[in-house]
């Protein structure tokens, strides 16, 4: 597969790994947060951590939109399908998220709720076209990568007057998440962020461009390197971050030049502004209320806002007291520091957001990292 296989080449990996090992200062630690679920996945799936020197520690940030979706929002969707005769169209990622009363969308389906798993926002709209007699509600989630497609289908629904279609909008914004990490309580108490730099998200950046990260580099003096999606991209970005830290620089650099420009996709950005506006505040699971971090559907398109159409109210639901997801998402604790990790909280029975999706820090550690910490005899 072109532009995929070449970026997974093992020989090149060894070369970059050697370079990183040569350039890290033996006496210091480098803590880099990778923000994108896709990066978490790539690091885990390819065993990138094995190729890095021990001075480098990678922290999984809140880059998984499923993980940061509050229980209350899933409850809202479950209530909608169980109480009204609607078909809920949702991405596969959301189906197993555990919500209140031991339910999930998948379990609601088992109780008779009409839930359709879709691959694309366009599929949700098509469903509505094909069953004009029934209501179709699209449960939209995602960061800036997934938001433009939702904007498109809302605009299309308006143009085609598809009256039986509406959207529950859970779209969230990347820069807000990064800010909330940089301004977390740990920062206030320690006066310093236990982070040396960020591996910037790949595909979010194709849409928003590299410009929005310049603020973080300047305000907080933290380097950001936007990295492509493949494991070689991640390693190269780590090398670039190591160099910035060694040289005392805090800039925005772009490793993913084949897909990311400074301005990003202006057409997509304009489309998003046309359909959505900022919510004053939105709850992020594990991070609490974050101001100006999420989107709502504008008044002009209110007809397609399911929250208005069905008078839906989000009820706040607290996370389990033993859950350490908040601290883990902010990079100050590790999954193994959580009392219930791997015992009460497992991928089969996830208690907190970090275990819910395979990209969550806890799920990734459980599936891929756990074995390193147990002394397993080599083959």
């Amino acid at each position, binding site marked *: 597969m072109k532009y995929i296989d070449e970026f997974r080449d093992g020989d090149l990996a060894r070369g970059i790994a050697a370079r990183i090992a040569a350039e890290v200062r033996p006496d210091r630690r480098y803590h880099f947060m990778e923000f994108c679920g896709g990066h978490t996945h790539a690091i885990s799936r390819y*065993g990138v951590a094995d190729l890095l020197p021990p001075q480098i520690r990678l922290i999984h940030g809140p880059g998984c939109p499923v993980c940061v979706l509050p229980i209350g929002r899933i409850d809202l969707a479950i209530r909608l399908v169980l109480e009204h005769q609607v078909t809920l169209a949702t991405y596969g990622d959301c189906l197993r998220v555990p919500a209140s009363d031991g339910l999930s969308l998948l379990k609601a389906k088992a109780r008779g709720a009409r839930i359709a798993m879709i691959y694309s926002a366009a*599929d949700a709209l098509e469903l509505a076209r094909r069953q004009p007699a029934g209501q179709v509600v699209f449960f939209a989630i995602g960061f800036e990568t997934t938001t433009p497609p939702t904007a498109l289908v809302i605009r299309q629904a308006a143009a085609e007057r598809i009256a039986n279609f509406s959207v529950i909008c859970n779209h969230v914004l990347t820069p807000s998440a990064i800010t909330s990490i940089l301004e977390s309580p740990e920062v206030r108490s320690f006066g310093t962020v236990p982070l040396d730099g960020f591996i910037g998200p790949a595909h979010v950046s194709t849409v928003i461009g590299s410009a929005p990260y310049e603020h973080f580099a300047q305000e907080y003096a933290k380097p950001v390197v936007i990295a492509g999606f493949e494991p070689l991209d991640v390693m190269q970005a780590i090398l670039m971050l190591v160099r910035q830290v060694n040289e005392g620089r805090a800039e925005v650099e772009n490793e993913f030049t084949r897909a990311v420009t400074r301005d990003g996709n202006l057409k997509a950005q304009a489309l998003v502004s046309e359909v959505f506006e900022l919510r004053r505040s939105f709850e992020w699971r594990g991070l609490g209320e974050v101001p100006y971090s999420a989107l709502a559907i504008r008044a002009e398109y209110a007809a397609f806002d399911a929250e208005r159409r069905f008078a839906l109210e989000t009820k706040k639901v607290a996370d389990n007291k033993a859950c350490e997801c908040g601290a883990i998402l902010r990079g100050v604790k590790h999954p193994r520091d959580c009392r219930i990790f791997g015992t009460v909280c497992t991928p089969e029975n996830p208690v907190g957001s970090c275990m819910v999706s395979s990209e969550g820090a806890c799920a990734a550690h459980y599936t891929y990292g*756990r074995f390193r910490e147990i002394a397993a005899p080599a083959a």
Partner: protein
Amino acid sequence: MTAMDDARGKPVKAGYVRPLDFKHGRVDMTHGGGGRAMKQLIEQLFAVAFDNEFLAQGNDMARVPLPPGRVVMATDSHVITPLFFPGGDIGSLSVHGTVNDVAMAGAAPVYLAAGFILEEGFPLDRLRRIVESMARAAREANVAIVTGDTKVVEQGKGDGVFITTTGIGVVEDGIDIGGARARPGDAILLSGFVGDHGMTIMSTRESLAFGADLQSDTAALHGLVAAMLAPVRDAMLADPARGLHALRDPTRGGLATLLNEIAGQSGVGMLIEEAAIPVRPQVEAACEFLGLDPLYVANEGKLVAFVAPQDAEVVLAAMRAHPLGANAARIGTVTADPHHFVQMATRFGGRRVVDWLTGEQLPRIC
């Protein structure tokens, strides 16, 4: 004209029974009622297609002779949707699935029983296609479908047709192949490309439609197993530590699930090489599209063998010489590991654990 003549004036043959209308007919509740309609369905469809002396006797059971050895029995239920897909259908699948389960004991399958749950309204022409496909698969596998059962459920209570097959076979005394017998040092051999069946099914489902030349790999594997046993049979009879220790076919949950199952049953660990696992480029691409891992995708015509190290080469050669094992490869080695981890050396150079599947593998966007 007499009362016995038909409308055209021709005499109606005595004992005439109107045949089943396969072209336009549909299953209805009488076909499961135990009366004449059901008898007709059995006689005109199942008995004709499966065609053997046991069925012809018309009993609710079959009294069958068995070759010498120990009896191996297995059962499988098939609820697949869609019923027809590139490379096969629920009929051929139901034969292959059970034949393969029996074959994984090193046994030669001999007889099958088939239970059908039909949904009211299911078109008879589709049922006939399925039954004929089963008959063909059974003939090619050299097994006879000797007894069966038919029930009909109301419309809406079944997915067209569900099929349960039970198979019996016979394995030679002294040949002990089972999931608990893998040992540290064993070679792990895989018979060919993984992920074909699951991705073919995905590609025919609505929401994930994309054009591809994928085909299900559904096949009966007992011939391959026999070919693998042949060169090591004598050694195995003389010394149980030799030859084939465990055999299993990776169906739902894919290769990864199979490896974890055996690791648990045998109390061992495993180390496999990603680069050694054969995956077709289209399957890899289809998995990329959906965010799926080929290691967890279903197969219906592949097997994994755990073989004593000194016999690995000769068994692998036997696999490659057989049409169903042409792309066979050694993918790893069994290790001693109290945690029973299945570890994989990735193409990239790092290592990861290939864990149990969590729930059902669902396509991701993220």
